[in-house]
């Protein structure tokens, strides 16, 4: 009886070799995650229009598994901050970021979101990273769609490698609550 079971076991292993492979659980989860990012497009300004191009027919973010745009933060895991964040918007974006479930990532698209850009002005937040932790900064005013795709691929790599994100773990929201 025991002998027969062992044989069956061996046969099963032999058969599965033809269509399966072994991996670590976290690797396969990361592989799934990186290829099914659901972006929350936080488009506020000009970069938002360029992000439409990223989603649009020519550049097509769907090729990277990220076409399911979710405006509900609870269903998204990648926030794309596309456009200027003003002082008035800062508490709003924080609230929305907090509503996203872990694991979550933030891509800051363009000069304004990254640093305030050329708006060194009384009502413009000098970079969204004052309020929420940012994983990838994409320069440009606005960045080309290629640059945004590169940024998304950067996030994918981060997920695949399980990279440490000290800027996120040590993040404090400052004066914003």
């Amino acid at each position, binding site marked *: 009886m025991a002998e027969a079971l062992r044989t069956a076991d061996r046969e099963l292993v032999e058969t599965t070799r033809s269509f399966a492979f072994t991996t670590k659980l976290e690797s396969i989860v990361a592989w799934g995650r990186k290829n099914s990012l659901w972006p929350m497009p936080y488009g506020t300004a000009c970069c938002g229009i360029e992000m439409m*191009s990223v989603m649009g027919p020519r550049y097509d973010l769907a090729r990277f598994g990220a076409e399911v745009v979710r405006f509900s933060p609870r269903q998204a895991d990648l926030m794309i901050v596309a456009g200027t964040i003003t002082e008035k918007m800062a508490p709003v974006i924080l609230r929305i970021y907090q509503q996203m479930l872990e694991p979550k990532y933030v891509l800051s698209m363009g000069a304004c979101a990254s640093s305030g850009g050329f708006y060194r002005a009384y*009502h413009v937040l000098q970079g969204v990273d004052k309020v929420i932790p940012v994983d990838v900064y994409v320069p440009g005013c606005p960045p080309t769609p290629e640059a945004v795709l590169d940024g998304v691929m950067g996030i994918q790599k981060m997920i695949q490698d399980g990279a440490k994100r000290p800027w996120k773990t040590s993040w404090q929201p400052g004066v914003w609550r």
Partner: protein
Amino acid sequence: MSTDTLASLQMDLRGKFPGVNFDYNYAFGNNVIHIPKEYVVALLKHFKDTGRFDFLMQVAGADYPERAKRFDVVYELFSSRTSERVRVKTQVAEGDTVPTVIHVWKGADWFEREIYDMFGVQFDGHPNMRRLLVHQQFVGWPLRKDYPADQQQHCTEPLPIFFDNDPSYVPDPNKDLVPLNIGPSHPATHGTLRVMVQLDGERVHRANVELGYLHRCFEKMAETHPYNQVIPYTDRLNYCSAPMNNVGYCKAVEKLLGVEIPPKAQAIRVILCELSRIIDHIVCVAANAVDLGALTGFFHLFTYREKVYTLFEKLCGARLTVSLTRVGGMANNPPEGWYKDVLAFVQEMKVGVDELDLLLTGNKIWIERTRGVGKISAADAIEWGYTGPCLRATGVGLDLRKAQPYYMYDQLDFDIPVGTSGDVFDRYLVRVAEMRQSLKIIEQVAKNIPEGDYTIRDKNIVLPDKKDVYGNIEGLMNHFMLVIKGLRPPVGEIYDATEAANGELGFYLVSDNSAKPYRLKVRPPCFAIYQSFSKQITGGLLADVIAVLGSMNLIAGELDR
């Protein structure tokens, strides 16, 4: 538009206000009347009642700290019948108030609130004198000359939902109302608009809007940058059609300088404007349809938008925010074959517009969702300060390209499409028809590009060619002088408007002969239109709110500036 206008106004006002002497002057092609603030309401009411001027285009403020009465309040009037304009100015001291003209023109509402927000000038009798653009925790008046441009103040709490915009509202205790907040981060609000409604079942009982979530201080930035460096900021006003803002701004500066750009530069500007008009309408129609559930149009139309981006890219390397013009003309010549590319695009786009027509115009769902929604009469639209496709959808054929032709528009063959009912469906139809007219214009211009230079060659306005800068001492010196001294228009002020994709885009520019604008106020077309939004959606279905919002083509960049 001449001194005759001013003379006839003078005659008219002498009769109406005997014994009072206003100060009349004519400068840079503009008629200006200076009046004491006590006469503001009476005079504007007189102009409106006699039908002399039917549009209040904007109310602007300006700050002159060294003066006893430090603030200017400036009313810009326009007559659609005669295309005449007049600017009425009054002075106010700090702490003093100005009577509101909201009862004369409803459209004064937000313009007055903006002046309060930016300068701290109170308007007497305004029913809702609250801050408009900056956040609720902001202290101080940012556009006053003594407020530092880069002094930020953090806003730590989001603004809760509120409805106290209409003091005449009487609550009905029998109604069980549900408050609903839409935006500022909501797919249908296109970025940063915030709409707050109180629902009685499916119907909107009360509505309010909050703006300023994209207030990035354009006007303050313009005051702190040299004239040519303001051009990139204008790109980011209506970023769906950036070249039109470049053209509008440069045209105002050129008019103040008293220069006329060469025919070739005019032709290139016309092509760029019409290309922009097409891609602006693409975004508006596509987004409006997406909001109502029709995703195909967006994907299909964006193919064509990308083609226009490619044309822009060939001119300057940028796709969206192009900064294509310079004061005095264009930045450079288009590359070889560019006009041919433009004409090829026109042929493709003709098919594109036909396909859009097939996709939506006869589509039953689209018709049901848009026809009769957001209706507005021509008289109401004028009252609010509507311009552009939204005004023309009501049947008023006002288009500055015909009414006040600039560049070569008076020599071109094109029509002004108008609607009848002013509803969302008509706005859509007008936009589609305008796309066809724009193609017609581009075809005419691109086939007959005038010979000559792409810019004027005044050494006090335009930088010399690089080959001269590096090749001879005179070129080097001219470059050096212009960079150090800057471009300096004469002392004076001007209001100049162009027909942008969304309506009248006006620039009120004050120069003190320094290298930076003393004051630059933009009259964004969608700002005036959006004022009427709360009134327009009240009583309608919640689902229609989204349709109306999309049809107004609100671009936060120019709305909040």
